């Protein structure tokens, strides 16, 4: 038996959170759990808070409400750089429901959007006003108590930001892996490079080895080869129904190279 409580503000909703309670965002994860009789919660909390659905510029950054859907991301000119990522998620119906906040908590092999946010210096704001790096949140997302109200991301310039999703079913399938990279350039050299993988571990994660191989270099074939050599350093990709850990290790360098070369193929 499930009870649902709806509040006007995210703050009230946050205060209503207790044991065996889940925050209801878009419902794509939670309603499935309800439909299948998940016994780990019996109470859902919602908020009508309009701020959850807003996208706003904040100087060089963009503030995205946790309740913003993938469809809103595609529609909004302010988040045009994230549209290709949102488009890679689900079908149109799912995108009308799936939210940015929900994607941060989507289990493997989901979380492509979080993977992209991860490289864009993303910070998550919880309802109680506290603020943490997305990377920090993802590392302990199972134990997070508060509700994420919004995320703030940097706005990349030109083609500095790249995203690649590898799935077997087209046009829509879940990730064998996804790769996001933010590669700002100053004087032809890469600076503050961030690269992240999705579906290559328990949660989306940055790939420090690749970032270091790229940092301070120009994006030439030598650099790319150096990066691909360390493409899976320190990673522990999972086996699942889509692919084995072995396969994920084997193809990660290939897809990384194709991403860095901007090769659109598959």
């Amino acid at each position: 038996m499930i009870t649902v409580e709806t509040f006007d503000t995210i703050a009230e909703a946050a205060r209503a959170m207790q044991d065996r309670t889940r925050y209801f965002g878009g419902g794509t994860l939670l309603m499935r759990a309800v439909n299948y009789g998940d016994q780990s919660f019996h109470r859902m909390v919602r908020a009508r808070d309009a701020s959850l659905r807003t996208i706003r510029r904040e100087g060089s950054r963009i503030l995205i409400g946790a309740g913003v859907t993938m469809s809103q991301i595609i529609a909004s000119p302010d988040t045009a750089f994230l549209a290709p990522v949102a488009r890679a998620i689900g079908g149109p119906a799912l995108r009308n429901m799936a939210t940015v906040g929900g994607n941060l908590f989507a289990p493997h092999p989901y979380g492509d959007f979080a993977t992209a946010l991860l490289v864009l210096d993303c910070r998550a704001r919880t309802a109680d006003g506290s603020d943490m790096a997305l990377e920090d949140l993802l590392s302990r997302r199972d134990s997070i108590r508060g509700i994420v109200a919004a995320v703030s991301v940097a706005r990349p310039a030109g083609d500095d930001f790249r995203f690649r999703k590898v799935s077997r079913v087209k046009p829509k399938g879940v990730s064998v892996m996804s790769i996001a990279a933010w590669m700002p350039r100053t004087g032809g050299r890469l600076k503050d490079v961030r690269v992240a993988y999705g579906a290559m571990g328990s949660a989306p994660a940055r790939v420090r080895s690749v970032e270091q191989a790229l940092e301070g270099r120009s994006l030439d074939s030598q650099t790319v080869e150096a990066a691909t050599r360390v493409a899976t350093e320190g990673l522990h990709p999972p086996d699942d129904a889509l692919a084995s850990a072995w396969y994920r290790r084997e193809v990660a360098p290939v897809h990384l190279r194709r991403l860095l070369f901007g090769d659109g193929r598959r």
Partner: protein
Amino acid sequence: MTIHKGRGFACINYPIGMNLGGDPSQALVHATPDGKFMVSLASIDLGQGMKSVTRQIAAETLGVPVEDVYVDTADSDTGPHCMGSFASRGTHRVGNAVIRAATEARKQLLDAAAEELEVNPADLETDGKGNIHVRGAPSRRISVANTAIAAQFKQGRTLSGRGIFLVPPSGVDPDTGEMTPVTCFAHAAVIVDLEVDDETGEVDVVEINSAYEVGRALNPKLVEQQLIGGAWMGVSHALYETTEPYYPARDHGPVDFNLYLMPGPAQTVPHHIAVLERPAEDAPFGGKGPGEMCANPVLPAIANAVYNAVGVRCDTLPITPEKILRGIRANGGARPQGTR
């Protein structure tokens, strides 16, 4: 990265009708007061078109327009016994039962018309447009509707028929395997063209050419539906599907359609089909069921095309990118087998 083109061939035959027989199906046909016909079955339409094809079979047999026939299935109180829709038996078994039932009803229809026209029933024929007339004298005619009215309201005749079709069971000799498995076979041959990415093992099927021999295409559009959809399923079986990805280990069994893979609408393959029709003597109008066999040749043709492309024999289904990539690694690289 290299993309290798490959071409593969396979051909098959397929046993039509439940293996070893012993699987009856029945049909009942009766006329409504004004000469429309109802076919009562307990057979199942699971999308293959049972209701539609038996409707055409009944109309053809009765000699009336298809619009005047309706197929009602499946209610165990009103539909006579049918073994079921499986083993490519629907068209063959149920179709034959419907033919026999409709033939008996037609006999009564012609008898009733003969009485009205004062001629010998043997001299009558149907025009398939709702009329019965004397052979060679189209003007001496009566409509099926008026025949039915006369039969039921004046002559006191039913226009109805019973039909059953059974291939009696065949035993199997335990020492030699001697048996009569079925009475006819459908045939198919396919050529698959595909591309293999030798860095990822990913396969793109780019074209299928095929020939399917179906005895007779009872409804060409229903046949097309089966062959197009069936070939899609063949591609899906060959490259994507399994409930046990690590068989015989049971780990990571998919529980939803995100993890149980089937090719999406952006991965459909241009499929150029030729339909051949060699009627089988004991099949309805010679027609063999095309629905079941159509996926079968696609699986090996894809495996053979993958070998032709990169020199990897993938003898284990499904042929995943991982299996191909492991094969390429084991061979020390792709080994294209030459253009066909």
